[in-house]
């Protein structure tokens, strides 16, 4: 049997996440907030400008094709790192004509939506977001409060950035562990906490 074995550092990090409570996913292991921030190449608040799908060649298998998509973003705010301009995410999956390639667990991009994205490995990864769907948070304007609030990929409000590491639900039980606050985080609050985490991470790495 031909197997590729992981490098030691990857195996070690896998072991680390295995120890996280209720943080395992079949396709994706939900990352912690700090790890998401640290792992991201850049983090932006942006609106989706366009989504275009086409057939591409698999570089590892000449002659084999797959459907990919380019998601063009209109960056409203750079929260971490230095994204290219224009910023276009390169994803596996999409629709060409009547044929569609889906990657289960891939986040949905809707033209016009506002979102906070933890981008990693754009052009190299299947989905260039940390933890696939965990790397995308939608921002919705609350007309009653006037706040721009942050929501998880499954539509749950994000009350605390640490909730990122929690699974969306547990077996048959509501997400009672989820931190309940009066209101979901605002986009600016979330951005502040991301920046604080990034600063903390930088301090740790510079020691």
């Amino acid at each position, binding site marked *: *049997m031909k*197997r*590729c*074995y*992981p490098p030691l550092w990857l195996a070690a*990090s*896998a*072991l680390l996440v295995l*120890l996280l409570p209720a*943080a*395992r*996913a*079949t*396709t*994706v*292991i939900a*990352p912690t907030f700090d790890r998401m921030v640290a*792992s991201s190449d850049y983090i932006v608040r942006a609106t989706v400008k366009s*989504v*275009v*799908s086409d057939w591409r060649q*698999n*570089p*590892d*298998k000449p002659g*084999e*094709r797959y459907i990919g*998509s380019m998601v063009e973003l209109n960056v409203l705010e750079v929260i971490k790192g230095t994204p290219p301009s224009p910023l276009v995410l390169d*994803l*596996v*999956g999409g629709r060409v004509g*009547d*044929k*569609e*390639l*889906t*990657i*289960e*667990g*891939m986040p*949905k*991009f*809707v*033209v016009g939506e506002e979102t906070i994205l933890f981008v990693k490995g754009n052009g*190299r*990864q*299947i989905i260039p*977001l*940390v*933890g696939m*769907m965990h790397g995308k948070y939608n921002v919705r304007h609350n007309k009653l409060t006037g706040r721009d609030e942050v929501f998880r*990929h*499954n539509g749950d409000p994000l009350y605390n950035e640490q909730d990122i590491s929690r*699974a*969306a*639900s*547990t*077996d*048959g039980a509501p*997400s009672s562990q989820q931190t309940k606050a009066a209101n979901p985080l605002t986009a600016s609050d979330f951005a502040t906490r991301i920046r604080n985490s990034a600063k903390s991470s930088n301090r740790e790495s510079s020691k």
Partner: protein
Amino acid sequence: MGLLALVSVSGAFGFTFVLNKNTGLPIKWPEGTIRIKILLGDTKTLSDGTNYNTSARAAAQTWNAIIGSAQFQTDLVTGPAGTAGDNNEVNELAFADKVYGKDFDANTLAVTTGYSTGNERVEADIIFNTSYTWDSYRGNIRSGSYDLQRVALHELGHVLGMDHPDDATPKQTVSAIMNSHIGNLDTLTTDDTNGVQSLYGPASVPPNDAFANATLITLTGGNTTSVKGYNTKATRETGEPRNVDNPGAHSVWWRWTAPSSGSVTLDTGKVDATTKKIDLTKGESSYFDTTLGVYTGTGVSSLTKIADNDDIESGVVQASTVTFNVVSGTTYRFSVDGWDGDSGGITLNLNFNSVGGTLPSITTQPANATVNSGSSVSFSVAATGTEPLSYQWQLGGVAISAATSATYNIASVSTSQAGTYTVVVSNAAGSVTSNSATLTVNTPAPPPPPPSSGGGGGGGAPSVWFVAALAILGLARHRRFS
């Protein structure tokens, strides 16, 4: 432009599906065998005694045990590990460190990729990330290694078209192997079973497959009701009519008797007011492209078609709907089939509109009467029911002209009007006929006999005989004076 990914929505029980965004219907395999090649390898013996290939095959067999119209082919297990091809219309399970030449995210255990055309899946591959250590065992998750079998069970659920209930909009909170996270659960739950059987049906033939075994529908919620079923593994009968002239292949039958006249709207799915697509979120829609037919008659080969339909909106909303008038007491037969052999879970919604509401009900029946000829008589009826009520009196079953109110008066009865009277009371919902009331007409009394001689009588009108006598006497006197 627009949505990049297929939209996930919730089902009635929490289960969710990968949907065709054009139709709103789940993407699934056509009936038959889902060919899979398990290229995970068979050289390493795992904790439960399996190897990677046989562990994954056991997961496929777990799904096979509960689904009807499609089955994973599991005899294609190959010995050595191999790689999955892209867009080759072969379904493969393999280990890899890349997918389509791109890296896994560091947090991703396994990925299921699926190609589809329209509502049909045409290829799906499962790639297990070689960055992780894999084993095969039951029970709680162990530290340091992932159970390939439960991950395969989850990913094969994706291959079948299932999605994450906890990622649905709105989110569902259920116990399910199809939830987005792995945990101590290592078997399918009721929600997983309900979900996959909505797509492929159970392994059994539906009880209402044969026309003669049509399931009886009764109105349970006022004038509406919804019934559930499936048509996977159902077959057509000799002489059976075709809905919308489509060949079909998997018809099932219901029957319903109209309690009163009116109209019925029958459908196999509801439309979401916002998306204008079929709405699977409320458990009111079927999970496949249906056809629907309404018939009357008692023999499957001699039915009279009343109405049929393919799509609510051709090619877009692939649920079916018909509206037709019904006559009180008539039994209607409903056939649900799949367009070009499609099949799956059925929801059939019936909305009965009894037009005028409640049928008339007679509270006071007309009474018998006996009168003399030339006398007057009156018949009356009292009835309740949705207004307006109308009346038609009949004599011997024949409508009487201008006798159209609750009371029927005859000013001067003749003997020809004797007989059996009924009244038909009607409204928009239908009509009822009263009990019979009999009119008896007495004929006039015969003339009295002539008076006897010497007899006198006092008082009263002079008799004919007396007048005649006077006339004779008067004539005699007239002759004497002459």
